Every structure is written in structure tokens, then in C-alpha cells.
């Protein structure tokens, strides 16, 4: 008993042992600068603006204005694409021709089988994407709105040398949509809902849906 609790405590100490996404500090500073910039012209000159330490409303959910990030990203991507085209022209393909994007979903029932329900809450699903373009990702949604897993980078991702693999517990009822995404350029980060994420880039996709009861 004590030993098992000790193991549990040790595992809890290491839970989610990951670094914050790269560049987050810069985004915080940029958001603060942007808020300062926005506040300055609005403030009447005679009284300098003072910080509000009272019941201030929380800031907007997006902390860095989209247009600036987008234009920067497009600029960088454009430069990378141009460089890649030149390199391909000179020395042939930069990477081997990719095979077809494929997705495979399996699940492990947790409880005893119940007639008439294939997948139940609590079952563990494993999804693997193989092939595709230069960049590949896995997105999992519940009811096409709630983003529940993203690979690579998410906590449900499993290491694999030749596939993008996620394993997750299907915790709630609903329809789960597993999407394998491939692209010749970096895949944009999904935020949900599914439609909006699929519209965000020139992506090749394979989709599998599971109804969880």
C-alpha cells in the first residue's frame, strides 16, 4: 500500500514534465507592449495613465495580434519555399517522394463488452498517421468542435520513428474525429473547430470518425 502510494507520488511529481512552447516569453512581452501602445493614444494627456490593480477585466484570449504573427509567418514561409524551390532546381528533391497519407485507428476496450456499443467512454484509442507530405500532424476532435489531442507536441503523443502516433482515453460521449494532416509546408496549429482548422491551409487529410457511447 505504502509502496504503491510512493510510486504514485513519484509519478505525480513528473506528470506533464514538458517545457512551455518555444517563444512564449516573447509573446508575453509583445502582448504587454501592444497593450501599452494601445493605451497610450486613448489616455488624456493631463493625467498620465495608471495601471488598474482593481477589478480589471482579463485580457483578450489571443495575446499577440494575429495579423502581425500571420504576416511574419507568411514572410518566413515564403522565404523558405523560395529557398526550397531553388535547392530542388539545383540538386533535385530535398526529401524523398512521400507515400500516400494513411491513418489507422484502433481502440482498447476497458470494461466488459456491451452488446450494441462498439466504443465506450473510458476506452483507449490509438491513432497512427503514416506517409503524407514533408510535414504531418494528427488532430483529434470531439463533436468536431472540441480539440482533444494534437500531435506532434501534445501530451497524448507517443514516440515513433516513422509515424505520428497518439494515444488517448475517450473520456466523454460523442463523435470523435481523427484527422491525419499532411502538407509540404509546416502545418498550422489547430485551435478548433475542425472546419476552421481544415480551412487554414493547403492540407492533405485522412479522416476517421468514431461514435463513443
Amino acid at each position, binding site marked *: 500500500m505504502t509502496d*504503491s*502510494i510512493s*510510486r*504514485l*507520488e513519484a*509519478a*505525480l*511529481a*513528473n*506528470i*506533464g*514534465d*514538458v*517545457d*512551455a*512552447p518555444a517563444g*512564449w*516569453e516573447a*509573446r*508575453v*512581452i509583445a*502582448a*504587454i507592449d501592444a*497593450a*501599452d501602445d494601445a493605451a497610450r493614444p486613448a489616455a488624456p494627456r493631463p493625467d*498620465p*495613465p*495608471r*495601471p*488598474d*490593480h482593481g477589478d*480589471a477585466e*482579463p*485580457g483578450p*484570449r*489571443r*495575446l499577440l495580434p494575429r495579423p502581425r504573427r500571420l504576416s511574419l509567418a507568411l514572410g518566413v514561409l515564403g522565404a523558405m519555399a523560395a529557398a526550397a524551390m531553388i535547392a530542388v532546381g539545383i540538386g533535385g528533391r530535398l526529401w524523398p517522394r512521400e507515400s500516400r497519407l494513411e491513418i489507422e485507428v484502433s481502440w482498447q476496450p*476497458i470494461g466488459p463488452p456491451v452488446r450494441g456499443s462498439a466504443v465506450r*467512454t*473510458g476506452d*483507449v484509442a490509438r491513432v497512427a498517421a503514416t506517409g503524407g507530405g514533408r510535414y504531418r500532424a494528427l488532430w483529434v476532435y470531439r463533436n468536431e468542435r*472540441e*480539440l*482533444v489531442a*494534437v500531435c506532434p*507536441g*501534445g*501530451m*497524448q503523443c507517443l514516440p515513433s520513428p516513422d509515424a505520428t502516433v497518439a*494515444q*488517448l*482515453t475517450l*473520456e*466523454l460521449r460523442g463523435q470523435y474525429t481523427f484527422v491525419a494532416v499532411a502538407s509540404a509546408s509546416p502545418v498550422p*496549429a*489547430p*485551435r478548433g473547430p475542425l472546419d476552421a482548422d481544415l480551412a487554414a491551409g493547403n492540407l492533405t487529410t485522412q479522416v476517421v470518425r468514431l461514435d463513443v457511447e
Partner: protein
Amino acid sequence: MEPTDLPLPGVGQCTLEVTAKPDDPDRDIIELIVTGDQGAALRLLMKRHGRGVYRYCREALRDPTLAEDVQQQVFIEAHRDLLTFAGRSTVRTWLFAIARHRVLDAAKSRRRADAHIEDNAAADAQDPTPLPDDRIDDAQVSFALVGCVGKLSERSRTAVLLRYQQGFTFEEMAEICGERAGTLQARVMRALPILRACIEKRTGGRL
């Protein structure tokens, strides 16, 4: 540390009443605030506690993207409120109190209808299925634990993460959560066997 008057860039002349506990490891951050270097204070705060806050947000919310947003909100708010930090707790405790509030706000906004395993704790614990002799390996424990922690109630999850993932004492947790230390300790002690039963049930092994 005595209250002091210092001009802050972008703020104008204002009275600062920031103080730090004498034994606060982050006392140097407060000293930077007092000397007017709010930017350096923020950078140091992010360097020391950014990872911890992100880990907490990520496990509490079970959504890496949302956790990143909340982490940023926490430090933006901390940057704003450091000017009035009164030293009633350590900087880290104060920072995690902000994080806890923002996580609760984010979870509320998300309006996720979550099922809590505590409701079925007895059923989990009394599973008559005999367990195999093999003990679950560490990787299985870690994997199952993420799902099991996610199924705890919001309050239990917060208490467990603050206690074990972040290593706070129950007294510090009381400051963060605004509850009694004994209440939080009892909550954590109740959660542990539930987590163990959940892990064993999910893996079919013995912890």
C-alpha cells in the same frame, strides 16, 4: 523593504508599496521592481516560473493550446500586479494563486461537461477482477496517470497538482486556494487511493 517612490516608465509618478518576505527566494524580483526595472523583473519571473506554471496549466486544463494562452495571461497579470505585491506570501505562491484563478476561468469558459471518477470511486476500488501479479511499469503508470488525474474533480486535481507536481506545502496551498490547509490535505489524501484504483483499472495491473 520599505515602500518607496520611484518613477516607472510608462506609468508616471506613483507610490510603490511592494515588499517581499525576507526568506522569499524571489526577493530579487521584488528588488528589481523597487528599482524601477519592471521589465527585468518580468523576465526573471518568467525564466524561473514559466515552466512550472505551464506544467500546472497544462495538466489542470488538459489542453496544451489553452494552457499556453492561460500561461501567458498569468504572466501578463503578474507583470501588472507586481507593482502592488504586498509580500503576504512568497512570489511563487502569489503567482500560482493567479494561475489557479485563470485556470478556473478558462475551465469555466470551456464549459466542459466532465465526468468525475470520484462518483464511481467505490465501484473502481471494489473491482472483483483479480489483478495479475505483474506490476505496472513506470511508463504505463505515467500514461494512465494523465487520464486519471484528468478525471478528478477540479478541486481535487488542483490540490494534487499543487502538492505533488509543484511541491507546495499544504500551508502554501492554503494561501493559493484560500482554503484551510487541513481541508486541502484531506482532499489530497482522498484523491490518492482513487488515482491508484483508476490506474490499476486502466492498466489491468498492480501499482
